[in-house]
């Protein structure tokens, strides 16, 4: 046991105090036949030195890339050094859920500030203190809408991240809610088809913007065709909130998604930062922790977990969600990230990502073996194209230049063979773009 042990003498004294001779006696209420006879084999114990050297060996089998042109719900952005510095503070990361507000004002105020920032970005008045990730937050948002209007149908755009759709299916499977997919037309929501749907039994309409293929959706038009179903706006690249019409302006009453782009590293997919914001009528259906401001008994401003009566530890089976632990530390990182960048910094990051993606598309458009999907539709920092390339040649030349290339969409749907999703952020320089374009050219069939 490397991190702590009692001295032999302490153990002896403590046992004596308890009237026991051996530690094993403390476990006597486990029936003898259930006690482990043969210990299972697991590696260890290892000293800290051995541990680190083993992990360094393992890391030789993991490739990190200089240039990443892959996103699809996980984006590499610049993270200011101060974000890591603050989130390394034990005062934050070794604390738990602020059950005792008197010794948790740091966490509570930070969450309150985070909620304010998410509310500002989405235009919706209420934000919670985080969810697990974008996919599970989307499923929870659909459940909020269902608890709100008790209608048994969800319309989801075919432009929502395929993994989000899978998770939605998993969450809703046993609720009796029917999920109806609205296929895209020419890369975006098919407004005509949407308008043909009878909305009277539709609980929510779930749209991702920018959508999974990178295109911008006409959110106000979608709202018009959604009747009085709840419009759920799912963000994709969350930086877009700094620039695009807000979910509130678009008429959404719930916004959710993954705020990974706000200061969370890629980290092979987690932990990220699920979030939900909503209009006030959904406040009591919002899952998870919500931090509120109040006063203490000396009249001093203070923060507490508010409206806990919504939650599982009080409401048990009548709670609208079972969430307990959330992703608070990711929210701390987001709060620091957004405070450092400010409005202008965040806009710069977002617009640079947009610019880099458009430059990349422009450069690719000179090639004969690239065929864009809907080449004239507005997009954010992702776009998709069909490439006529030799896969092996392509991947070898990317590898040579330490580039993680665009994502093959056949991963999600075999009918998308040879289609790729390109992503750029402010991290992609001109040189990397040129190398990628060169690689596409070289691999031409």
């Amino acid at each position, binding site marked *: *046991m490397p991190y702590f042990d009692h001295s032999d003498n302490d153990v002896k004294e403590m046992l004596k105090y308890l009237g026991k001779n051996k530690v094993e006696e403390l*476990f006597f209420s486990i029936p003898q036949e259930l006690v*482990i006879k043969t210990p299972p084999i*697991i590696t260890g*114990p290892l000293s800290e030195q051995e541990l680190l050297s083993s992990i360094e060996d393992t890391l030789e089998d993991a490739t990190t890339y200089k240039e990443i042109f892959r996103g699809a719900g996980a984006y590499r952005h610049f993270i200011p050094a101060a974000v890591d510095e603050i989130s390394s503070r034990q005062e934050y990361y070794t604390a738990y859920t602020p059950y005792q507000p008197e010794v948790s004002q740091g966490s509570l105020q930070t969450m309150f500030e985070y909620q304010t920032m998410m509310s500002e970005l989405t235009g919706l008045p209420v934000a919670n203190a985080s969810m697990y990730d974008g996919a599970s937050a989307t499923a929870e948002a659909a459940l909020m809408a269902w608890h709100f209007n008790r209608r048994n149908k969800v319309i989801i755009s075919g432009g929502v991240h395929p993994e989000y759709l899978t998770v939605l299916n998993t969450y809703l499977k046993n609720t009796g809610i029917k999920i109806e997919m609205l296929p895209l037309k020419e890369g975006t929501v098919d407004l005509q088809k949407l308008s043909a749907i009878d909305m009277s039994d539709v609980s929510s309409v779930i749209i991702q913007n920018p959508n999974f293929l990178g295109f911008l959706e006409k959110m106000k038009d979608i709202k018009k065709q959604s009747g009085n179903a709840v419009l759920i706006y799912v963000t994709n690249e969350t930086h877009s909130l700094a620039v695009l019409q807000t979910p509130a302006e678009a008429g959404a009453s719930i916004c959710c998604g993954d705020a990974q782009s706000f200061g969370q590293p890629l980290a092979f997919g987690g932990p990220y930062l699920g979030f939900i914001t909503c209009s006030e009528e959904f406040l009591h259906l919002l899952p998870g922790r919500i931090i509120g401001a109040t006063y203490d008994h000396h009249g001093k401003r*203070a923060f507490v977990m508010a409206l806990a009566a919504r939650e599982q530890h009080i409401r048990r089976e009548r709670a609208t969600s079972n969430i307990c632990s959330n992703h608070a530390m990711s929210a701390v990182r987001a709060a620091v990230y957004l*405070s450092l960048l400010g409005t202008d910094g965040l806009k710069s990051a977002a617009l640079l990502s947009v610019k880099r993606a458009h430059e990349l598309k422009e450069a690719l458009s000179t090639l004969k073996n690239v065929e864009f999907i809907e080449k004239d539709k507005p997009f954010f920092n992702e776009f998709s194209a069909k490439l006529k390339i030799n896969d092996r040649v392509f991947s070898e030349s990317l590898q040579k230049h330490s580039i993680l290339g665009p994502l093959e969409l056949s991963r999600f749907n075999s009918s998308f063979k040879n289609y790729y999703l390109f992503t750029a952020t402010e991290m992609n320089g001109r040189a990397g773009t040129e190398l990628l374009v060169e690689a596409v050219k070289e691999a031409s069939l």
Partner: protein
Amino acid sequence: MNPNVNEKLIFEMSKKGRSGSFIPECTDTSCIPSEYLRDKPPKLPSVPENEVVRHFVRLSMLNHGVDKGTYPLGSCTMKYNPKVNEKAARFKAFSNLHPYQDEDSVQGILKILYELGEDLQAISGMDGITLQPAAGAHGELTGILMCRAFHTSNGNPRVKILVPDSSHGTNPATAAMCGYKVQTLKSNNSGTIDIDTLNKNMDEDVAALMITNPNTLGIFENEISDISEIVHRKGGLLYYDGANMNAIMGYMRPGDTGFDMVHFNLHKTFSTPHGTGGPGAGPVAVKKHIIPFLPYPTVNSTGDRYFFDYSNRQTSIGKMRAFYGNFLVLLRAYLYIRANGYSGLKRTSELAVLNANYLKKKISHNFTAPSSRDTFHEFVLSAQNIKKETGVNTLDISKRILDFGIHAPTIYFPLIVKEALMVEPTETETKENLDFYAEIMEKIIAEARSNPEELHKAPHKTPVSRPDEVRANRRPILKALSLPEKED
């Protein structure tokens, strides 16, 4: 820091034109048609880097964490978070990996995930595992969805889930999310499952019984073999809530005692930081007959190559989240297990149980105990006697504890114990720390008798005292008011 002055909100420190330089400036919106753009920019703070850092450093200092002092929050296992794990989790080689990289480029990462899965199965005595769930409650949801899929595949999803009245709130909330009715079982006088009650409620409508063992009172359900027999005889499944796994490592494996599914709270037993509320990780290990229903993909190995296994896609419950799991949390748990080895994990549980029993004996004479049974890694006491005698209640006691630079126990849980104090010191506290905790408790009980008024007003030395929660609920203020206007 002057304790009488609030730390300003970051928005209150904001002034136009103050900002850092992190990213090259770009204001070019020409790529996006104007109808798609927002009307007004968001009002984020405009504060220079040094002031941002000072703000969050000052805020952080208002917190109590494990690295500052004892944190015996029952059911939460607030143990020390080893620093080597923090160091490794910050390696660039981990943080820069994209989840959609090709498997060949992340063999080392898949190896870590695979081996962690193998270790957790060995520790719990199970046959298969998913690492996807992001937290304990997320693991429960995964488990009960699998339970439902299992029964459905046998022709009938069944209608009810049984939970003891001492269970965590997440158990019944999870069951409800999966479309089940919840039947609560009243515990017997010693705080454990009453076999007669179970027998009466267990029928072929019951999909599963969810329990923790030891239970939330810290008591081992020693009739577990009978419980398992009763549940399985009617075709039900037995679910193990792993919140209390820190009590039994090296002594008992849920898989050997009839459990079909187990979730782990890696942020409890396996030392990953609690992070002011998360992220944690809640892997779920299962017996063979549940493997077809595991979320896809799982991580598998051919012996010399590691890969994501989608082979159960047709029968799987689907996915619980995007990508594969909270990798940086899983990594820390992996390192913790290897640093300890099996012998270290066994020692962990031994000292956790020793510490809890020692502290219990030191302080219990002041309180009433809801059960006379032996306890494991945590214990529950009731302050009902103190309340009756002095008017000082559990809340008062817990608030006063904060004045001594240590954290209060979990209070008013489990719900079956009035004026409950639920104490879990964990193994990473010295005898001196436990003695100090006991001393403080004596002092507070003496104060309750001599000066109860002071306790009603406690705490006295914390940055704030007794925030008005009723007001926060009646008039919710959930974001900063009157944000400074940003001038264009």
